Every structure is written in C-alpha cells, then in structure tokens.
C-alpha cells in the first residue's frame, strides 16, 4: 500500500542529519594535519566517530578512512530510504540511489575487464543503492564480465537487460564503453520514465536527471573529440533528454572537431564556465579538468535544492549531494596527504559549497 509520506517528519530528520555535516573549519583543520593517521584522529571527533572506530579494528591508514567513509555514506542513504519506505516518495529516492547501483556495476565490469583482484574492486564500490554489499560481493566473485551479466540476469535485476542486449557487440569489439553506455542509457531512460513531470517533486527529480544527462553527454563528447572519433561512430553514444543540450547541439559540438570549438557551442548555456578554464587545459586536452568542473557544477546544483520547498523531496536531494560532496572532499584530503601534495593545492582540489 502506498502511504503519503509526511515530509515534515522525514525532512526534519534529514535536516538533523545535515546539521552533522562537517563545517568548512573542520575541513581546514583536516587539511592542516600532517598525515593520514592524524586525519583519522580528527575524524574521531566528528560524526564519523562510530564508523572510524569500527574500521580501525581491522584496518589502518588510507584503507581505514575508505572503509569508514563508505560505510557512513551507505548507512546515511539506507536511513533515508528507511524513512521513505512504502511512501509515494520512495520512488524518487530510489531513482537517486540507483545512480550508485549503476556506478557499482560499471566498476565491477571494469574490474573484471582488466582482471583486477576482488579486493581491489571492493575498495571502489559504494553500496548505497538497491544492490547491497552481499549482492555486490557475489557479483565480484564471478570470473569474468559474462558471468557478472549472467548472474544479474539470473537474479532478475533490471540492469541485466541492456548488458545482455549489447554483450555480443562488446565481445566482438572488446570495448567496455559499449556496455557502460548501454547501462547509462538504460538508467537515464528508466529514471525519466519513472519521474513524471506533474508535481513539484517530479520536477525536482527531473531537473537533476536531465542535468546529469547533459553533464554525461558533455563528458562523452569531449572524450570523443580528444580521441578523434567520427560523428557517425559517436552519435549512437549520445543520450537523449538533456535539460539544455539536445542531440543537434551535441552533434554541432562534435562537428567542431576541437575542444575550443566544442566549448564555444556551450556559450549560451549554463556550461559557459568551461570556456573560462586556462588555455593550457585546452592545449594539453586534459579532459579530467573538464570532468571535475562539470562534477562541481552538478554537486552545486544538487546542494542548492536545499533552498527549495522544505516540505518536498528537495531536502532529500540536497542532502544526498551534500553528503556525496563531503565524502569526496575527505577522500581528496586523505589521498593528497598520502601523495605529499601541498595544502594550497588540496584547497584548490576541494569542492566547497
């Protein structure tokens, strides 16, 4: 039975959770710590205390931080899902969290494709979606890409459909991007279909999905331009439904043939900020810099949802992105400490919203 979710209760809890997110001074003190061990000690004074203590029993150093962050992230989302279980807004939160299912499946496929060990793949997973830790570990145990897809199909998990349909092409070309694109496309089409556009909640979710489609398309187009992929070959990899960029605009980016030309097409769109990147980024064709800027844009847009109607899904959307941002920032700081990167450079890498 579908029950109308009382947003007053749910959103009060989410706002309570938001109040425990780390404030900028805490990040500043983490940046100033000399090594990973002192970052762990500092995190023990924050809301990560419980997970850090649990992780330190088994692990130390970077691995301890990774495990603690991953568990905290997963628990936070499972908690929100628990508040909304059985309510009509459960579908919205499921759409949001499915993003991590897709990311996890892609990670496992990538790992299997390049024969990574199970332990290495587990480190990269974020079991925040509907596929829990046990399911993901069972998938990782499979010997190859085909076995992973077969197991997904045996369990009746919907993501098996696009993978099975495109497996033949993948096995002929040995190009994993075929499977990655297929599952991405399936996710976005499914999310658009489920979200609708009637209510305020629908529009909030729709806005986030269509923005993500834009961001994914821009990233793909830039990579295809760098790799000098022809328009005929590239066109099937574009995803329909972006908020600002339709297929025609994406094709005109591809036609320009250079990164500068492609970014110029974005001049009259909210993605104009990409043209303000330093000239050497264009010269060296560093796509990762563009990807990072786009990711920042997406996170900022997500977190701005907090300013929407306080009795709507907007608060949950804002929290999901704020939590993701926080975890990403802590990870950046810890990893930079292991790589001896200066404090100034760490500050530049972080995403403050």
């Amino acid at each position, binding site marked *: 039975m579908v029950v109308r979710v009382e947003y007053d209760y749910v959103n*009060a*809890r989410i706002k*309570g959770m938001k109040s425990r997110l780390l404030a900028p001074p805490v990040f500043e003190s983490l940046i100033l710590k000399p090594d990973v061990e002192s970052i762990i000690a500092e995190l023990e004074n924050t809301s990560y205390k419980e997970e850090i203590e649990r992780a330190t029993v088994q692990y130390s150093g970077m691995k301890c931080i990774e495990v603690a962050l991953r568990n905290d992230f997963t628990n936070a989302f499972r908690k929100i899902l628990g508040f909304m279980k059985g309510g009509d807004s459960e579908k919205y939160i499921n759409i949001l969290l499915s993003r991590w299912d897709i990311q996890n499946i892609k990670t496992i496929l990538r790992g299997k494709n390049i024969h990574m060990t199970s332990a290495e793949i587990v480190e990269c997973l974020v079991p925040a979606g509907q596929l829990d830790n046990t399911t993901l570990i069972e998938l990782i145990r499979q010997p190859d890409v085909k076995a992973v897809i077969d197991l997904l199909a045996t369990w009746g998990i919907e993501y098996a459909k696009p993978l099975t349909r495109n497996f033949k092409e993948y096995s002929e070309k040995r190009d994993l991007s075929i499977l990655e694109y297929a599952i991405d496309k399936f996710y976005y089409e499914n999310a658009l279909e489920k979200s609708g556009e009637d209510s305020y909640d629908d529009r909030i979710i729709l806005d986030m999905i269509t923005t993500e489609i834009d961001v994914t398309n821009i990233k793909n187009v830039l990579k295809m331009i760098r790799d000098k992929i022809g328009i005929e070959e590239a066109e099937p990899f574009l995803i329909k439904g972006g908020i600002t960029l339709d297929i025609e605009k994406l094709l005109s980016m591809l036609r320009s043939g250079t990164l500068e030309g492609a970014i110029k097409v974005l001049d009259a769109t909210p993605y104009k900020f990409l043209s303000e990147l330093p000239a050497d980024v264009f010269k060296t064709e560093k796509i990762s810099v563009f990807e990072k800027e786009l990711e920042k844009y997406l996170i900022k847009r997500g977190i701005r949802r907090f300013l929407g109607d306080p009795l709507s899904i907007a608060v949950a959307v804002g929290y999901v992105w704020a939590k993701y941002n926080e975890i990403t920032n802590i990870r950046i700081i810890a990893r930079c400490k292991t790589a001896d990167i200066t404090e100034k450079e760490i500050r530049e890498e972080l995403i403050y919203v």
Partner: protein
Amino acid sequence: MVDWGIPIGVGIAFGLGALGTGYAQSKIGSAGAGTIAERPETFGLMVVLVAIPETMVILGFVVAAMMMIMLV
C-alpha cells in the same frame, strides 16, 4: 425568540482557533519528533515550539468567554 447569533459567534471563535491549533501542532509535532530523533538535545526547544500554537485556541477561548460574559 432565542438569539442564536451569540452562541454561533462563540462557537466560531473557539472552534476555528482549536482547528488552527490542531493543524499547526500536528505539523510542528511531527517535525519536532524528527528533530528530536536526530538531535535529542533539542527536546526542550521542541516542547516550547509545539506549545506555541496553543496561543491561538487560548485567544479563541478568551474571545468566546468575553462574548458570553459581556453580550449575554
């Protein structure tokens, strides 16, 4: 002949105030419960916030009582 005007006015003054209070307290109460679940230290503040809409029904009662005493 019975004058129904005053009893009806009294009923409206008290009844609407009570309905308004009930609605406000249901919303503040559920949000307060959510807040206390996450941050138990806010319990005292939440009790005060839940009690604030009581003023509406008290004012309604005062107006109703004044109508009864002064007009009847």
